[in-house]
């Protein structure tokens, strides 16, 4: 074989991959490595000169920066609620909708609809509900308890945020679970019914085990997306009142673009977010591998 024919497949491979690699290198790889580098500096975004500060930014973010630490705790709380609630409601909806006959398609269409809309639009719509419609209902009907400062009270704004996120996100998970449910063989359920199993037993012993793989997907989809939550908070509360609902992504955004322009310091925070998401993904891959081996 001459060296020319030996190299040909490699050259063709590179030619096919080149356009994708070009965009990918400039807009993903370069900023990733750049981010790691800047996180070790005191760069302020404007001044071309900057100094290395080692891990100083990381130490400051994790020990002195109250707002950043608060945003991590708040995000964690949000993640726990979202992972549990959104998967619970999504499975419930999927099972209920699949049990219906003629109305099935309609319900699926309606429950998925909010997911099609940007959270910015959804957030403004819910802002209207929370600040105008609910107080009005409280004033004119017996539902007096609705008269709350939903956005202004730190405790309640957390629930307002959850309601918006669930409203928007539950349809997406529901579609995943419906797809999984449709994979459960009909004969299995019929066999169980003949053996005298009631609906709950059928669900518990036949349906649930069949949708476990989808559950793994659903859990990690919500884990990943909830850690990165930004737009829902941006539109509904703006992180307020004060900084009560500030999440990690919003804290990074404000550090870099609206408050101090401490780009180096904000980059360190961005790396911390990356490490959190990275660890979750590693655990996810590990669990999926383990499951595949067992199965």
């Amino acid at each position, binding site marked *: 074989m001459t060296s020319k024919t030996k190299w040909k497949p490699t050259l063709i491979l590179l030619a096919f*991959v080149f356009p994708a690699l070009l965009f990918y290198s400039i807009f993903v*790889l*370069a900023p990733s490595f750049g981010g790691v580098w800047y996180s070790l500096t005191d760069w302020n975004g404007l001044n071309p000169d900057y100094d290395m500060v080692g891990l100083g930014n990381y130490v400051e973010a994790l020990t002195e920066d109250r707002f950043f630490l608060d945003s991590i705790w708040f995000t964690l709380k949000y993640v726990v609620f979202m992972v549990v609630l959104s998967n619970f409601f999504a499975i419930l909806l999927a099972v209920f909708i699949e049990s219906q006959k003629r109305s099935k398609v309609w319900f699926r269409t309606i429950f998925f609809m*909010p997911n099609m*809309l940007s959270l910015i639009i959804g957030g403004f719509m819910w802002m209207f509900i929370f600040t105008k419609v609910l107080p009005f209902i409280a004033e004119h009907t017996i539902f007096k308890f609705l008269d709350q400062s939903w956005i202004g009270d730190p405790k309640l704004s957390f629930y307002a945020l959850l309601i918006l996120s669930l409203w928007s996100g539950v349809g997406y998970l529901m579609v995943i679970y419906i797809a999984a449910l449709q994979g459960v063989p009909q004969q299995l359920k019929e066999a169980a019914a003949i053996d005298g199993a009631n609906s709950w037993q059928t669900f518990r012993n036949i349906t649930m085990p069949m949708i476990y793989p*989808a559950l793994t997907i659903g859990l990690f989809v919500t884990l990943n997306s909830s850690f990165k939550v930004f737009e829902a908070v941006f539109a509904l509360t703006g992180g307020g009142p004060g900084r009560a609902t500030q999440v990690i992504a919003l804290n990074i955004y404000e550090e*870099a*673009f609206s408050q101090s322009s401490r780009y180096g310091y*904000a980059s360190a925070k*961005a790396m911390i977010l990356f490490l959190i998401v990275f660890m979750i993904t590693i655990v996810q891959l590990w669990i999926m591998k383990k499951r595949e081996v067992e199965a």
Partner: protein
Amino acid sequence: MNKLENASDIQLGRRVGSVLIFLFLLLGAVVMLFPIYMGLLNSVKTQSEMLTNILSFPKELQWGNYPSAFKKIHFFRSLGNTIQIAGVGLIGIIVCASLAGYKLSRTKGKLSASLFALFILSMLIPFHSIMITLVKITKQLSIQGSIYGLGMLYIGLGVSMAIFLYHGFVKSIPRDLDEAAIIDGCSEFKLFYAVIFPLLLPVTATIAILNLLWIWNDFLLPLLMLTNSDHYTLLLSTNMLFGEYSNDWSNILASLILAMLPVVIFYLFLQKYILNGIAEGAIKG
């Protein structure tokens, strides 16, 4: 006798259960549609009528909020910008990723495997972790503020997931096809666009839908990139209107309805494909 009664009891129980489930779903559906319905309802009232009765049907439909919202969010200009950004992004992602995904899937060896791994790796990186340096890079390339520049950013950010989906799909296309075409004297590139690419249509449709929804509804990247309001997308214009007239709800609601109109129409027409695409994208990705 006893057995029969039992059987009809069970049947009755099933029916009651089914009705209860239906009612539960109906209630849920009302909650899901409530904000949209409220928005629509109050967008055709005057501000003062809205304040006196937010829940009731308007005495007279006030369409006046719409022309003014239409102007304030520069509807056609914003829509045009959004379409251009999504167009550049979508075409770029499909072209780049189908080329790369196909060849990476067909080629064996270390180089191919490591390139594939390199692309997949970025699915672990949250956008918020790279956005700061990304802004700096776009300034250096002087594409910040440009609509086409933003479209190109979406190519870089979206190409990984698309390569992953193409890579998996290509495995289902028999290799004999490639070999036969090459023996017939087809060039590598012609083989791709004349033989392979048409066969990728199902996965291309999935990729197009997923990426279109992502780019269309993305807010943060345009917020960081577009500095001139002439280039604003629908979402940015709506956000700006909200900032300027935060208490003029009838106008804001009309603009929100306008901004969601394209997506809702798209959804109602292509619902089946969208739901399939979402399920596939999630399960394989």
